[in-house]
């Protein structure tokens, strides 16, 4: 539990999100605001799910014992539902705000729905990752030996990778979700909800990290590919981007308009 563990895990978990923030969001004030509002929505959803869990806990009344574990599982599943509900609510809010912005401000500086999908997903993801991991991180600075009672010694590393995958997944889910709402493809929403449930449910088998992490990453890659195509990417644009022939890509885009 050294500084190396702290910094390593912190950068594993939050490095990509920080990079995304610095390069794409920090430059535009409006995007920062929407990011923070997204984080706020996730926070409210967490509050509601904690309330539900708390009420369920007080109703059953059993302080220790197996019911606590079932209550926790119930709490996790309810939380996933509530998070997706709030994602939908944020979508509705953004739709209204976008129309309002367009009415008043007719120029092109109003962000598009796709951009807002990305920003909101990232907001959800960052808040979710931070809330899951920051306490663990701050504990890693203190004294202690990981796994001294027979638990896995890879506790921090696993948590860091899991946090990373959750942040990325939230971002992709945001893009796919909003795209599904825009195009009225309701199956997209269902898939997002189901994959979210799946990823959360897989964490129940911790500390068998192998299956859990690997499947989460596979789901992340799949969602990433879907999000890429939902956001308007294509194989051709990817090739052009990788071969640094962006100008052609831009011209191509203009022509197709």
């Amino acid at each position, binding site marked *: 539990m050294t500084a190396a563990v702290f910094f390593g895990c912190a950068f594993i978990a939050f490095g990509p999100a920080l990079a995304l923030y610095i390069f794409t969001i920090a430059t535009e*004030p*409006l995007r*920062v*605001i929407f990011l*923070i*509002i997204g*984080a*706020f929505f996730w*926070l409210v959803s*967490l*509050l509601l*799910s*904690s*309330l539900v*869990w*708390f009420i369920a806990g007080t109703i059953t009344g059993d302080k220790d014992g197996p019911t606590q574990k079932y209550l*926790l599982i119930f*709490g*996790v599943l309810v*939380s*996933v539902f509530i*998070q997706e509900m709030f994602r939908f609510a944020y979508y509705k809010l953004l739709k209204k705000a976008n129309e309002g*912005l367009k009415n*008043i*401000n*007719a*120029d092109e*500086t109003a962000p598009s729905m796709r951009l807002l999908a990305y920003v909101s997903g990232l907001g959800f993801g960052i*808040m*979710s990752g*931070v*809330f*899951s991991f*920051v*306490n*663990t991180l*701050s504990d890693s600075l203190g004294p202690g030996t990981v796994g001294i009672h027979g638990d896995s010694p890879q*506790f921090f590393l*696993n*948590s860091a990778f*899991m*946090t990373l995958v*959750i942040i990325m997944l939230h971002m992709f889910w945001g893009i796919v979700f909003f795209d599904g709402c825009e195009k009225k493809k309701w199956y997209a929403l269902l898939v997002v909800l189901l994959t979210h449930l799946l*990823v*959360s449910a897989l*964490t*129940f088998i*911790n*500390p068998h990290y192998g299956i859990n992490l690997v499947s989460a990453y596979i789901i992340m890659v799949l969602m990433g590919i879907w999000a890429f195509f939902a956001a308007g990417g294509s194989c051709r644009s990817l090739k052009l981007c990788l071969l640094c022939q962006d100008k052609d890509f831009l011209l191509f885009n203009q022509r197709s308009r």
Partner: protein
Amino acid sequence: MLTFMASDSEEEVCDERTSLMSAESPTPRSCQEGRPGLEDGESAAQWRSQDGEEDHEEDPDHYVCSGVPGRPAGLEEELTLKYGAKHVIMLFVPVTLCMIVVVATIKSVRFYTEKNGQLIYTPFTEDTPSVGQRLLNSVLNTLIMISVIVVMTIFLVLLYKYRCYKFIHGWLIMSSLMLLFLFTYIYLGEVLKTYNVAMDYPTLLLMVWNFGAVGMVCIHWKGPLVLQQAYLIMISALMALVFIKYLPEWSAWVILGAISVYDLVAVLCPKGPLRMLVETAQERNEPIFPALIYSSAMVWTVGMAKLDPSSQGALQLPYDPEMEDSCDSFGEPSYPEVFEPPLPGYPGEELEEEEERGVKLGLGDFIFYSVLVGKAAATGSGDWNTTLACFVAILIGLCLTLLLLAVFKKALPALPISITFGLIFYFSTDNLVRPFMDTLASHQLYI
């Protein structure tokens, strides 16, 4: 008490752009250590979003006006919105910085979380065995504190009304002197103690002297804008740390709630002291109390030959020295002072300048936001989730307040919405979310 001030409506062409509300924040007097009393001040945060003005459309006499005569209303609104997001971020950054400084200090320097006596403004102790007695004591403490704030605000308004500028000036200089020298010295001492760094007195004297002297110059006279902003953030953080240390637990929360209510009343009621202050300043066409306002002003000049550096300097310097100091009790939540960057007296310049005024937020707002977040970080079991939740809640409250400001275009209090959100999220996160997240984290479940 924080008030947001929006730019005046178009018809008030020659008025002061926005009125500032002076808010008094209580100056803590620690009876134990016999520190000089700090002045009370109300924090008035005035936020003024100003539209850019096109010079060629403006009558030179109206350059100080907020509205642009002759400009269609839609364009005005559009400009407000275009600059709205940027202004929000210009406020997010300093508020975040202040909170970061406070939270970092609270989490590392143990001095500010140790209980070491109370201010004379909160005489009732909270070390009572029964819950009811403790609650009663905290309510009484709050009543005393708020009445002190009210009295100081009214005193300040009276002083301002009867033009006792020298008195106010001296008062503000005294308080910022104490803040910049004494509190900085104590802070530095505690930080050095925490990190076990030895420092000899001559070095310490040199450092504190330089820091304090430059601070006085920057805040009360002229200085680079960034430096002035940095100093204002630092003194807000120091003030907030003093509050966090010396306010007992429950009293702090009740005081936060009560001061939001007071801010609301003082700014919006017709007979509220802050509102009267603003109106007086507007009548006299003077800027109100430039010193205790955090200003993020910027000036653009549009391709004109005549670039007046002094008018640019005017943006950065705290206005008339006597005017500044009047509200410059560091305790006072900033007087949202909105002053026209071009001084009246340079009528020619405005024609050539396209200005974008920045937003101004009262220092008291900074202080009370930081008190809330700092208390969230100090209490509780080393939980970062609560701190982060309060932080996000305050930012969202600030966002909403700025939105309301853009809609209503008049002075609005900055404390109520943010503090309400902050309090709600503090208590709910501490009691509901924390056990949930802790249980999840211990089983490594992810939601």
